[in-house]
Each structure stands twice: as C-alpha cells, then as structure tokens.
C-alpha cells in the first residue's frame, strides 16, 4: 500500500518529478554553463526534493518548487565557491549537441558565451521565460520575486545579449552579419 496519499487528479510528486528532469537539466546547464556541474546540481536537487516532499503541498506548482530548489542549490554553491573561475569558453558550449551547420554551431556557442556574461538574475530570468517557456508569474514564484522584476530582468538580459552580440536595438537580425543572424535567419532544419 502506498503511503503517499494521492488526491484525486493529483499525481504523486515522486513520479511527476521525472517529467521535470529534462527542463531541470536544461536550466542547470544554463546556470552553470557546464554539463557535469549541471548534472551534479540536478542530482542534488532530486535528493533535496525527495527529502522534502513532506513539505511540498499537493496541488501547488511542483515545477516551480523543484526549480526553486535547484536555483537555491546553485546560488548556495556560488557563494561557497565565490572564486570559481568561469570556464570562459564554456564546456557546455563545447559539448552542445551538434548542429547541422558549422556556422550555426558557432553562433550557438557565441550565444552561450554571451549568456554567461549576464548577471545570474538576468540569466535565470531569460532561461526560465525565454528558453523554458515559463510564464512570468511562474518564473517569479521560482525566483521569489515579483512578476515585474522578472519582466525587467528578462528585458535587460535580452538587451544585454543584443549588445554583446552586436545587435543594435531595433535592428533586424537578418540585417547583421553576426553569426547569430545566420542561425536565426536560416533554420538548421532547412540546411
């Protein structure tokens, strides 16, 4: 007999956690910029979540709860290793799954490296809202701040990326010679 009481229509978080692992891994990679460190962070997150499931309120947002645990673990690790030297080229960038075209891969590496230059708070907002499709409200719940703060951080993150990548404000990407433009204007699937 299961000791995990399942409310009608509410899945067991111990089972549901599996469905969130891919996105958790993606978020961890975006935060750490390193595949191995990201997987370690996800493992720590799973362990912590498992030991705290009694604190999780059934029916509330499990995804935001898990992402908050991961984010806290990341920030805690950052504080412990404040002197950690950034992997300037980004081992994640180097290990990116291959893209169909060389230019596209370079552009993705360029984007990854640019992303790592952003402050943590802007990067996490962009990762959640831009890359992982969180609503502003859900990202705010995850980060423990107001929705307006997430919007602002994401907007400033996008503006910073545009600046780092040489995309002028208001400029169409396809009018630039940036490597990113080649990715944006030519879908890899079509190459």
């Amino acid at each position: 007999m299961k000791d995990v009481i399942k409310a009608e229509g509410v899945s067991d978080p111990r089972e549901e956690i599996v469905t969130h692992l891919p996105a958790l891994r993606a978020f961890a990679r975006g935060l750490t910029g390193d595949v191995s460190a990201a997987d370690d962070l996800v493992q720590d997150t799973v362990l912590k979540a498992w030991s705290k499931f009694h604190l999780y309120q059934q029916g509330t947002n499990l995804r935001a709860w898990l992402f908050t645990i991961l984010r806290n673990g990341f920030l805690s690790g950052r504080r412990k290793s404040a002197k950690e030297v950034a992997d300037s080229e980004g081992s994640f960038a180097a290990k990116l799954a291959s893209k169909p075209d060389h230019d596209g891969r370079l552009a993705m590496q360029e984007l990854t490296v640019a992303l790592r230059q952003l402050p943590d708070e802007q990067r996490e907002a962009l990762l959640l809202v831009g890359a992982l499709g969180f609503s502003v409200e859900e990202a705010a719940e995850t980060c423990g701040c107001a929705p307006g703060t997430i919007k602002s951080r994401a907007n400033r993150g996008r503006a910073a990326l545009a600046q780092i990548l040489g995309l002028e404000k208001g400029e169409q990407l396809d009018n630039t010679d940036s490597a990113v433009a080649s990715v944006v204007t030519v879908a890899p699937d079509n190459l």
Partner: protein
Amino acid sequence: MSMTQSSRNSEDDSIAPTVARQIDENLRRLYDDAAGEDLPKGLSDLLDALRKQDSEDRAG
C-alpha cells in the same frame, strides 16, 4: 531567500520585439538539446535507489 530587486535602473532596455523574439527562439533551440536528451545513468540510478529506499521504509 527571495532575491531582492537589484534591478531598478531605468536604463533603456527596450529592444525591437522581433529581436527579443528571435533571441528567445535561439535560447529555446539552445536548451532543447538538453531537454531532449535521455537521462544520464547516474540520475536514473539515483531515482531507482530513492524509490527502493522508499519501498523498504514502507515495508519495514
């Protein structure tokens, strides 16, 4: 441990909607790879171990 709002600058951070959208599209593409991968063995093993421990706790 809510993050304080350190972002009060009123700098002009507006960019063209098309640029913003395309940045988001590229970010999505970048992380679709990670999201589409199989779980690493270490993580699967950890989940198995946790489930096993749970069932032993329930039985014992």
